[in-house]
């Protein structure tokens, strides 16, 4: 009995990673991932920006997509709207107060597969110390081996945040046209 038990255990352990979710690290070191936003300026045009530094990972299980999840941590001081003075203002306590709230995080609460690579990802965004449930519409772009011996999988996601939800001291000075912030995420992960 014992003789058979050990190999059986080994086989079941070895087969476990195949059946379990694949774990991916978001490729931020080579910048194949982007967190960008746009917000209306005076209601006349879109202002574009992005966060240059963040890190995260996701679990992907094709057989059990409801177990898929994403965790992202954003370095708020890396906000970049291509204008040093504006970025300084956004980092200040008039807006994101990055000294007090250096990170924004997203953690998954649910993932609902909609077929054809589309999904609805729900989770908690913690921004400026405020926790909000947000919903991200997800589209899988592709997956496969890369030329350097790894395996990659990529998604895009969109969601709309409401500036007034996050208790930013001077957000109201931007006017009602700037209430909605459109987020666009492009995420590529390397399978671990």
């Amino acid at each position, binding site marked *: 009995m014992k003789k058979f038990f050990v190999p059986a255990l080994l086989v079941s352990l070895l087969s476990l990673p195949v059946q379990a979710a694949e774990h991916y690290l978001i490729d931020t070191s080579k910048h194949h991932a982007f967190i960008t936003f746009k917000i209306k300026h005076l209601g006349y045009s879109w202002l574009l920006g992005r966060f240059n530094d963040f890190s995260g990972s996701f679990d992907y299980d094709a057989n059990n997509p409801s177990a898929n999840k994403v965790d992202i941590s954003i370095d708020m*001081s*890396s906000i*970049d709207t291509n*204008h*040093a*003075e504006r*970025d*300084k203002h956004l*980092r200040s306590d008039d807006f994101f107060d990055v000294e007090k709230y250096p990170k924004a995080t997203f953690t998954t609460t649910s993932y609902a597969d909609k077929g054809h690579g589309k999904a609805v990802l729900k989770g908690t965004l913690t921004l400026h110390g405020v926790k909000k449930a947000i919903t991200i519409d997800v589209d899988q772009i592709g997956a496969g081996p890369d030329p350097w011996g790894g395996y990659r999988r990529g998604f895009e996601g969109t969601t709309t945040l409401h500036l007034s939800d996050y208790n930013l001291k001077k957000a109201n000075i931007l006017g009602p046209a700037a209430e909605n912030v459109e987020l666009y995420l492009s995420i590529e992960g390397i399978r671990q």
Partner: protein
Amino acid sequence: MLLNNRARYGLVAIALHWLMAAGIFFLFGLGLYMTDLDYYDSWYHKGPDLHKALGMIVLLLLIARIPWRFLNVRPEPQGRPWEQRLAHWVHNGHYVLMVLVLVTGYLIPTAKGEGIDVFGFIEVPSIMLLSGPQEDLAGQVHWLSAWFLVVLGVLHALAAYKHHFVDKDDTLLRMIGRKAVTEPRKGKST
């Protein structure tokens, strides 16, 4: 006339002193005013543009003034020995603070590579890129050194009045280009 001598300041030193004094106090007031403006105020962009352009001119004056000061002879300090020592450190303190406030002021808007437009004549290019936290540190140093500089400037002015009205020497007069007709008025060594 243009150069200093042991009795009085030359015209160049006098001009640099008063242009920079006026520039620095104006920049300080403008800086406080402009950072408190409403987004929809017509000066929301004009204020910082003027502040940066004037700041670059004052920085240029400082670049001219530092070698001028250290290569030129300086008029004899007046007052008691401890007053002369204090004045020495107050004067040097002005230079340290001017360098700090002007350099950090330059670093903030140029942190991402943008230059500073000086009234459409020239654009001062960025020479150093800063990360967000470094730019914020430059902002804090800018704010603090500006406050220290104007407080020190006010103390310096009060000391000049004291020389003029209490000691009745020509410390103030020689900085406005006037000099006692006969011998310089000597400080009373009480």
